[in-house]
């Protein structure tokens, strides 16, 4: 199912290669059996923008992430990212193009340490050569040291607790810390676009807001990071998003600022209808 892409050029720093939007999704469609999970969905995301992707359960939000990141192959439509066409690319290629994601249900490697989990996200920037890894241990040592420093600094910006125990297994940590590790894993490679799939799931109101503040702080430091966030907690969307796209039954039913879509009659019906 997975396709391999063997060429592994290190990810470039976010240099705006081409003008225009960072992400341009055109008429994306995806069906499972007879069910149209995504039907002709189009939207754009500018550089540095935060877009809230909202809609009732089963409206196609996560499916759109899965199509975007190459886990599912779209039936129709195009995904243009940073001047290139990434439609139907393998997940590995999508990641190398500069898109990193988190998952709705935590997908950390519980047996591995915090550092290991963050380094999984850093795959493209680490030297994967067989000779380097097995025989050039001196150079490897330097790379580990600098990677550890970077990962610890990133973890510290979310939680000093994590930064103090980079070699503790993830399995023993509470949900909030795991969520933070997942986000560190996505951010460590300095992606151009971050896809957050319900970061608030399993967390309290305060924890969610804290987490969003931390993400925004990292974003300010890294510069130029764009975000698409799927979220049920509307307070979060209202606070962080520059614009919103509303999906219902796989179709886009509204688009605009949070205030605009929140007052949209169709949107209100969609939410009330599904409640």
């Amino acid at each position: 199912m997975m396709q391999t892409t063997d060429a592994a050029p290190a990810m470039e720093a976010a240099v705006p290669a081409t003008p225009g939007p960072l992400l341009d999704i055109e008429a994306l469609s995806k069906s499972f059996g007879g069910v149209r999970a995504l039907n002709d969905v189009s939207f754009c995301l500018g550089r540095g923008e935060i877009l809230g992707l909202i809609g009732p359960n089963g409206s196609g939000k996560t499916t759109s992430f899965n199509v975007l990141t190459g886990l599912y192959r779209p039936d129709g439509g195009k995904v243009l990212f940073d001047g290139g066409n990434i439609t139907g690319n393998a997940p590995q290629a999508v990641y190398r193009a500069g898109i990193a994601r988190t998952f709705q249900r935590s997908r950390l490697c519980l047996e591995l340490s915090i550092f290991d989990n963050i380094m999984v996200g850093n795959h493209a920037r680490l030297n994967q050569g067989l000779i380097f890894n097995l025989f050039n241990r001196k150079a490897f040592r330097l790379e580990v040291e600098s990677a550890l420093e970077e990962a610890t600094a990133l973890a510290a910006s979310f939680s000093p607790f994590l930064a103090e125990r980079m070699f503790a297994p993830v399995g023993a940590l509470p949900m909030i810390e795991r969520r933070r590790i997942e986000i560190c894993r996505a951010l460590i490679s300095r992606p151009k676009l971050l896809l957050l799939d319900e970061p608030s799931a399993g967390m309290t109101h305060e924890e969610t807001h804290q987490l969003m503040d931390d993400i925004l702080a990292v974003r300010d430091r890294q510069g130029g990071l764009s975000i698409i966030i799927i979220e049920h907690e509307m307070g979060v969307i209202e606070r962080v998003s520059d614009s919103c796209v509303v999906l219902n039954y796989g179709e886009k039913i509204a688009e605009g600022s949070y205030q605009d879509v929140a007052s949209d009659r169709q949107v209100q019906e969609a939410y009330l209808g599904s409640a």
Partner: protein
Amino acid sequence: MRAFILRLPPLAAAALAFGLGLVYAVVFMEQESDVAVISLVAFAAVAAFAAGRIGLIRRASLAAGTHPGAVAAMGGCMALALIAVFAEDHFPLLMLATVMLYATAALGLNVQFGYTGVVNFAGAAFFGIGAYTSAELIGKSVLPPVLVLPLGGLIAAVIGLVLVFPVVRTRGHYAAVVTIAFSVLFKTFLEVNDTLGGPQGQSVGPVTLPGWSFADGPVVFGVETSFYLNYALAALLVLGLAFVMVRRLERSWIGLALDAVRLDETASACYGIPIRRAKILAFVAGNLIIGVAGALYGSMLGYVAPTSFTFSDSLILVAIVLLGGMGSPWGTILAAAIVVILPEKLQAIQEYRFLLFSVVVMAILLFRPEGLLPRAVRRYLPVPQNEEAA
């Protein structure tokens, strides 16, 4: 006692553990009667439990983190000392060398399913491919016998490539059926193939170096040693190499990618890890290691026959990995020693060994899935001294 152990520097604790192990191993190997062997096994169980209670094992394993090189060297010295003690005796040396070669093969399996999650139930078949390579090439071709050993690994890896496509394209249980089928058919194939010796098998020549044949025991300090001394030393060298390489692999970015593939293929793909390449690398590297061990084993035994490389033998290799602890190289070596030596010393259970070890592994899976010496969290570099207490 506990207080004393806790004040011991980890390296000293490790030295103590290896020293006790050495004394025990020498005493154990000397025993002839079943009663003595059984008492010593019971004593080992109690002693291991006690060592755990007073913190010796924990303390010693700290050293494996802070001074991995020194601990590995101690292990090597312990093996050398054992070999030296029994330098004149065929049987103990044969047993030691067998332990080391089985441990090497199990390290190869560890790369495959301990780290990467690629199951291989044909371990004995790849071991056998190495052994049959020795049988066909040592003394019967122009190749210098010592070159046949790496060639045995290469051939095992190449034949493994036939299976790699279905193994890599599919997940877990499908790879199981492919390798099990290969394992079962490998024996059938050997039995019906007359050029390879058929059911009786064939003899294998000794490894030779210029001016040195492994068929003769070297005279060391005027002492005539067993010819198995050559093989025990060669086995130690092969095991040492495999151990160092597997450790380095584990403590590298590649090792991390292999773990990630085992634990979550979807997330790995989304973070750029080439799933197929990781699985192919693990499968090929594992078979290579297994094949080299098999090539030396074949030459050491002096004959190969299909009955030595059955599916049940493959399961014994799997049992070694599980008993020691998946992904734990030290555990693998310990488990290989238990699984190989116990039935040899206790002839009464020789007949029951497949039953015994399958039941032991079932118990391990149910009650202690992390194995005897659980794998430690990956530290890429030696742990800083000041962190050791954490």
